[in-house]
């Protein structure tokens, strides 16, 4: 006897997708379905739940090969629109990281710095089809005698460009406040002194890893929506921490799991890969990711039925505690509270503002739903799931 009342395989779900018969709903829609029908009935009805998230995700970048010149050059230092790219790979391969500032950026010399252009913006320019100025210098070898190269490139002309993000899609994130005397500018936005505002950064009930909190269906090989194209989960992300504190429903109450993802940059679009400037902090890349969750059984229906009111995070002081490794929080709040626009911190009512776009997260979940309904996108069973608890 099986431990589940409903049991489906990836093959069965894919067969239904191919036949145009799969029932696909977004993680937001699933909340009501599970509430109304219960998990068993919901699992019978629904085949796939789509999730989405769109927010700045720092650990992002792309491997780019820019092709050989004549005479040949072994690139030693490389810049794209004056943003340094790492060239210590092979003759014409580089990695351009999202948070790399422009060469002459004033940084935080006049505080808070603006960081108007950086690696994230180079990536956006490339996917938007705009010309990017490539500059490379070499030291000259017998097989690569050329010592410098400067040319304009477009994504279409590049032989190879692969988005490879070592850490995206955090499963939950802190709610940030500033309990110091002065305004601080950090990757959680502008925080007023004395805890007068709070910011948070998660799509909550739409967020991929909140809908599969124990990574039962997500792992190496999972096919996903990435930056407007099709990508894959290729490893657990850096700082992946499955042992973070969890609620009874399995969702984590702290930053926890992360994904490493990759996909062909040439399929992507500037709507879903966007260079961002975080005042006083640096540039980064806002990335759109959507993960489809197969409803293999009632357990997956329960997980995907989770709502904002049942997902919690901790309130952390970013002025001192965060930067000094003090493991302390000022209480916990649900995403329903955060999204309501105010929370209570130390007995005071504090207004909240998000950094993660719920509107865009929803659009991703709906797009992925359309792709699956149209039979364009099949689910991939992971070769190996992410490390669990």
């Amino acid at each position, binding site marked *: 006897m099986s431990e589940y009342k409903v049991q489906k395989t990836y093959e069965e779900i894919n067969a239904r997708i191919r036949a145009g018969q799969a029932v696909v709903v977004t993680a937001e829609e699933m909340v009501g379905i599970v509430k109304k029908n219960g998990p068993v009935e919901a699992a019978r009805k629904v085949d796939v739940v789509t999730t989405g998230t769109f927010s700045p995700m720092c650990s992002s970048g792309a491997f780019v090969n820019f092709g050989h010149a004549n005479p040949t050059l072994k690139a030693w230092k490389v810049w794209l629109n004056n943003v340094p790219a790492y060239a210590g790979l092979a003759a014409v391969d580089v990695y351009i990281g999202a948070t790399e500032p422009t060469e002459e950026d004033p940084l935080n010399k006049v505080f808070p710095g*603006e960081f108007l252009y950086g690696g994230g913006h180079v990536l956006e320019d490339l996917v938007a089809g705009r010309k990017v100025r490539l500059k490379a210098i070499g030291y000259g070898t017998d097989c690569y005698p050329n010592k410098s190269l400067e040319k304009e490139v477009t994504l279409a002309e590049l032989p190879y460009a692969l988005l490879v993000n070592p850490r995206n899609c955090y499963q939950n994130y802190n709610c940030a406040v500033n309990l110091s005397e002065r305004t601080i500018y950090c990757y959680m936005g*502008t925080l007023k002194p004395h805890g007068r*505002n*709070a910011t948070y950064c998660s799509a909550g009930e739409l967020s991929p890893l909140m809908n599969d909190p124990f990574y039962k269906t997500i792992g190496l090989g999972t096919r996903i929506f990435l930056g407007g194209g099709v990508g894959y989960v290729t490893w657990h992300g850096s700082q992946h921490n499955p042992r973070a504190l969890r609620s009874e429903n399995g969702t984590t109450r702290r930053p926890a799991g992360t994904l490493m993802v990759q996909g062909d940059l040439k399929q992507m679009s500037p709507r879903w890969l966007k260079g961002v*400037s975080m005042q006083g902090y640096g540039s*980064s890349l806002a990335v759109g990711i959507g993960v489809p969750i197969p409803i293999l059984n009632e357990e997956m229906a329960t997980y995907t039925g989770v709502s904002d009111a049942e997902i919690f995070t901790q309130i952390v002081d970013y002025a001192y505690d965060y930067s000094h490794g003090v493991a302390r929080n000022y209480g916990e709040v649900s995403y329903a509270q955060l999204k*309501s626009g105010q929370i209570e911190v130390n007995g005071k009512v504090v207004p909240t503002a*998000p950094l993660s*776009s719920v509107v*865009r997260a929803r659009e991703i979940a709906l797009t992925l739903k359309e792709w699956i309904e149209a039979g364009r996108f099949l689910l991939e069973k992971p070769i190996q799931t992410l490390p669990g608890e």
Partner: protein
Amino acid sequence: MNTRLYVLKFPKEVIDQPIICNLVKKYDLQFNILKATILMQQEGVMVIEFVGHKTNVKKGLAYLGEMGVTVQSLAGNIRRDDEKCYQCGACTGICPTGALSLHRPDMAVVFDEDKCTACGLCVSVCPARAMEVSLNGNIDLAA
């Protein structure tokens, strides 16, 4: 306290005078220069933010007028580039007037121009730099 953006045009005769310095000394105004183009022996244009008591700002502006400086308020000249805005909501936490707000429950970010006082606070807070200060629609300061 009152925070507003102004565009000042300096005729070439007054460019070498310590006008801004006097504003600070005489009228107790704080300022933040967002953009300045002043060439020697020519007219200068400056976008400046004044912070101070309302009556002091008023007196300071009158002083500028006396000195032959043309003053134009930037109120109403903040616009949102909807192509750039990705509806995150970061700006809603900083906008003092509620001109930028979240519509619930869908969490769409609404910009109500009528409530905007052109304080300029949202410009640098927006990660996408979607909030733009424009002068009569033809000088683009965000560029």
